[in-house]
């Protein structure tokens, strides 16, 4: 398993423009990948806008009512991308982290079979703490280790509605830790997943993965689905272990008594186990032992949501959930229970203000069992988080110029009061062009790990000397990390077939948490007496990062589409620049979507990731740049069957993408081949 590192957080929520929100939260209301709902809009439904939608999206439009206010993705004052179920289907993607590779500028590095390091705009790490992730409105960020247990996050990918990704701060709406990005994963309404579906994938890694879902109707306007998903996956670690198996199941019920009212109730249960190699630290000789360590993740959650629209401009959403998580590996055991309740209300004022405001409370208890490598003091924490936010989208010139002002006010048990204001200006000089600029502040709350843990990194026994132990200490006096981000973006659609999107940013970070060396000491407890070389977490790092993400879509022909992106990142951290090496400077990808006769789709992608040099057991070990090539064919012989074959990572036998701290082997991702059959009726 990989190491938790220093930081925390745990706030969530809502896309910039409010009305993303009601939909994102409401999930059930509509599935509309191309549209990101900002408060403003051009008002009416235009046939020419509707014609931009896919058939699937059109099928979700209401025939009787005017659509909720919505603005095309094109007019959003933020760097936003959307991944659809179609993308996932075409590229044979089998997990949420792998899907994120499709996002321009997103840094997705697979550490081993079931671990990923994922971040946007720098600071990548197995527990990257500046990225907030939500699944159907429920945060999956862990305030204990400060990051996301990606191995525990999964859904039946056939039931995915979309993944919305915002690069850059989203703290005004989502709160702490939405510093460098927000990922919003939403599944379809039960109404849109009716009938039986089964998919099975076999391959060199999938042995196999099976998803089952059944959707039905309980009464008029009450729909449900139940699902199960099971997999065995082959390990990547040539040193042994890394095999991964998981099972999960759940349900979702959507009740729409009227077009304005939606109720959703959903729940999940999962269990995931993986074999890992783990270096156990001992104070007595032998000082390190390489052992097998089973890694277990289990969890369950239940969520309820009520959305009520009052008019085109006004709506209310109330959501509450309970989430239980257990995670154990060689390092530690974490039990976490979270209760969360949120509301948000949106309304129009004096014709030019589109206001959304809301608030919430979250209570989290975390219990950690110590291990020889990691000790928490105290080992039980209770965290309260209160938040209030308000955002106003002001129409300065109708359809042309909008200003969005807002702020989050948050109080957490760790650092107290935090605020996250932002100002966003979007100018739409013509229907083909959009220019936006934003200044925003975000904060990352330190994780419990960085506040109160002791991590033993290494131990050795020199001749004629007491043992030497190398440790990292948390610091209860840490304050939140701060970011001021300046962003400018431009989108142009010169023709209906071609579009470009550029987002640039300049980020100023302060009070970044980093481990700084302590004077060498001598410790008698725990026994035996030993020399202690240690570091302690301090808010001792600051820095600037800047970069750009360029993406483009080209519909070459009606049956052939190309999507490309390039991202560039420069980090300048001081006084210790070493963290700069965690994230690639250049990334590039191009994907081709080709529809052939006889209902065959041929899809291909090439991706380049620059060199990095992340930590591996205390030292930085370089990972060479790599080019990844994927190719897949999907055939739909008829409406209810889909057959696909994919080759992934075709260019190399194996390549490494990141280092693991606990496992001395650098795990490499092998070339793989997979076939999948999906049946629905």
């Amino acid at each position, binding site marked *: 398993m990989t190491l938790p590192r220093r930081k925390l957080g745990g706030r969530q929520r809502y896309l910039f423009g409010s009305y993303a929100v009601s939909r994102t939260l409401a999930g059930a209301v509509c599935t509309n990948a191309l549209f990101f709902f900002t408060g403003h809009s051009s008002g*009416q*439904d*235009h*046939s*020419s806008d*509707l*014609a931009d*939608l*896919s*058939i*699937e999206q*059109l*099928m*979700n*439009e*209401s*025939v*009787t*009512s*005017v*659509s909720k206010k919505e603005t095309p993705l094109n007019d959003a004052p933020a760097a936003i991308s959307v991944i659809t179920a179609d993308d996932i289907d075409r590229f044979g993607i089998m997990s949420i982290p792998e899907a994120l590779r499709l996002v321009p500028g997103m840094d997705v590095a697979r550490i081993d079979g079931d671990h990923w390091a994922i971040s946007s705009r720098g600071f990548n790490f197995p527990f990257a703490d500046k990225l907030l992730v939500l699944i159907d409105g429920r945060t999956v960020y862990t305030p204990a280790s400060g990051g996301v247990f990606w191995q525990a996050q999964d859904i039946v990918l056939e039931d995915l509605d979309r993944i919305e990704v915002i690069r850059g701060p989203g703290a005004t709406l989502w709160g702490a830790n939405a510093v460098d990005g927000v990922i919003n994963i939403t599944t379809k309404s039960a109404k849109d997943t009716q009938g039986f579906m089964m998919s099975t994938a076999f391959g060199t890694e999938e042995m196999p993965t099976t998803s089952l879902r059944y959707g039905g109707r309980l009464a008029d*306007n009450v729909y449900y689905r139940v699902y199960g998903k099971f997999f065995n996956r082959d390990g990547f670690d040539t040193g042994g272990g890394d095999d991964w198996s998981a099972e999960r199941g759940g349900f979702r019920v959507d009740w729409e008594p*009227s*077009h*304005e009212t939606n109720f959703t109730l959903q729940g999940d249960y999962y269990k995931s186990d993986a074999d890992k190699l783990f270096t156990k630290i001992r104070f007595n000789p032998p000082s390190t032992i390489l052992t097998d360590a089973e890694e277990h993740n289990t969890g369950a959650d239940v969520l309820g949501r009520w959305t009520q629209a*009052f*008019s085109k401009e006004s709506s209310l959403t109330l959501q509450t959930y309970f989430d239980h998580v257990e995670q154990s590996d060689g390092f530690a055991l974490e039990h976490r229970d979270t209760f969360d309740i949120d509301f948000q209300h949106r309304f*129009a004022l*004096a*014709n030019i203000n589109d206001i959304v405001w809301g608030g919430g409370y979250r209570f989290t208890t975390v219990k950690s069992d110590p291990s020889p490598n990691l000790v928490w003091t105290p080992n039980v924490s209770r965290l309260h988080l209160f938040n209030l936010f308000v955002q106003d989208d002001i129409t300065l010139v109708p359809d042309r110029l909008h200003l969005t002002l807002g702020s989050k006010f948050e109080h957490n048990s760790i650092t107290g009061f935090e605020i996250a204001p932002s100002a966003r200006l979007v100018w739409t000089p013509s229907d083909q062009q959009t220019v936006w600029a934003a200044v925003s502040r975000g904060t990352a709350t330190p994780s419990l790990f960085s506040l109160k843990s002791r991590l033993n990194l290494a131990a050795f026994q020199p001749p004629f000397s007491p043992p030497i132990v190398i440790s990292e200490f948390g610091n209860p006096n840490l304050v939140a990390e701060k970011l001021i981000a300046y962003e400018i973006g431009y989108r142009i659609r010169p023709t*209906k077939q071609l579009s470009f999107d550029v987002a640039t940013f300049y980020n100023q970070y302060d009070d970044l948490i980093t481990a700084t060396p302590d004077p060498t000491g001598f410790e008698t407890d725990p026994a035996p007496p030993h020399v202690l070389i240690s570091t302690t977490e301090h808010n001792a790092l600051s820095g600037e990062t800047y970069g750009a993400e360029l993406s483009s879509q080209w519909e070459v*022909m*009606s049956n052939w589409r190309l999507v490309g992106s390039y991202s560039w990142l420069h980090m300048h951290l001081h006084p210790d620049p070493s963290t700069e090496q965690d994230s690639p400077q250049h990334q590039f990808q191009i994907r081709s979507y080709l*529809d052939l*006769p006889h*209902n*065959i*789709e041929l899809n291909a992608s090439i991706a380049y990731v620059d060199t990095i040099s992340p930590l591996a057991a205390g030292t930085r070990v370089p990972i060479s740049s790599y080019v990844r090539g994927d190719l897949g064919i999907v*055939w*739909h012989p*008829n*409406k209810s069957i*889909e057959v696909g074959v994919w080759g992934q990572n075709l260019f190399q036998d194996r390549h490494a993408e990141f280092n693991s701290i606990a496992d001395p082997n650098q795990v490499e991702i092998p070339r793989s081949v997979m076939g999948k059959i999906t049946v629905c009726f």
Partner: protein
Amino acid sequence: MVTRKKAVLNQKPPSPRRFLRFALLKGAVALSCVFPVLAAKPLHGQARVPKEYQLKAAFLYNFAKFVQWPDKSFSDTTSPFVIAVLGRSPFGDELEKAVQGRTANGRAIIVKQVQNIGAAHAVQLLFVPAADDSRLNELKDICQAQGILVVGESASFVKRGGMIAFKVEGDNLRFEVNTSAAEGAELKFSAQLLKLASNVR
């Protein structure tokens, strides 16, 4: 406000025109109660085509994209893609707006109104509004022979040999397809289209 709005929505529109009048009237009344400012603004100059037909227009454009026509349907490689509406068009100018500046099968799209099937030559997609539904029998053979995709909106349209028919399910639009009728006209539905169709015969 809430209840008024609901009343508007729960009313099944007996016909597009009545629905329009009704919606405009009730909408204006409801709005003027709550938002005098908004109500002072004209709702919109021109009569509005119901959302249902705006959606159907967008669907027709998608059908043009996701169906493959045989070469014989076009007189030459530069001839446009023609969508014809039989009889009285329920679309207003929404269909023109939907396809403006777009292409299908690499061809510019134009919209025509035709009064009878004799006038429908050099057409690739023919929409048969509910009012003219009974004319399907007289025109389906000609459409098959000429490779014309016939799209209708009545419940039995597909059963009687139409190729695609819209149907309203709850609050959403769905469509059924008849692949054998389409094959007779040498038309090929894409997998995506078939996947989304609520019924394939």
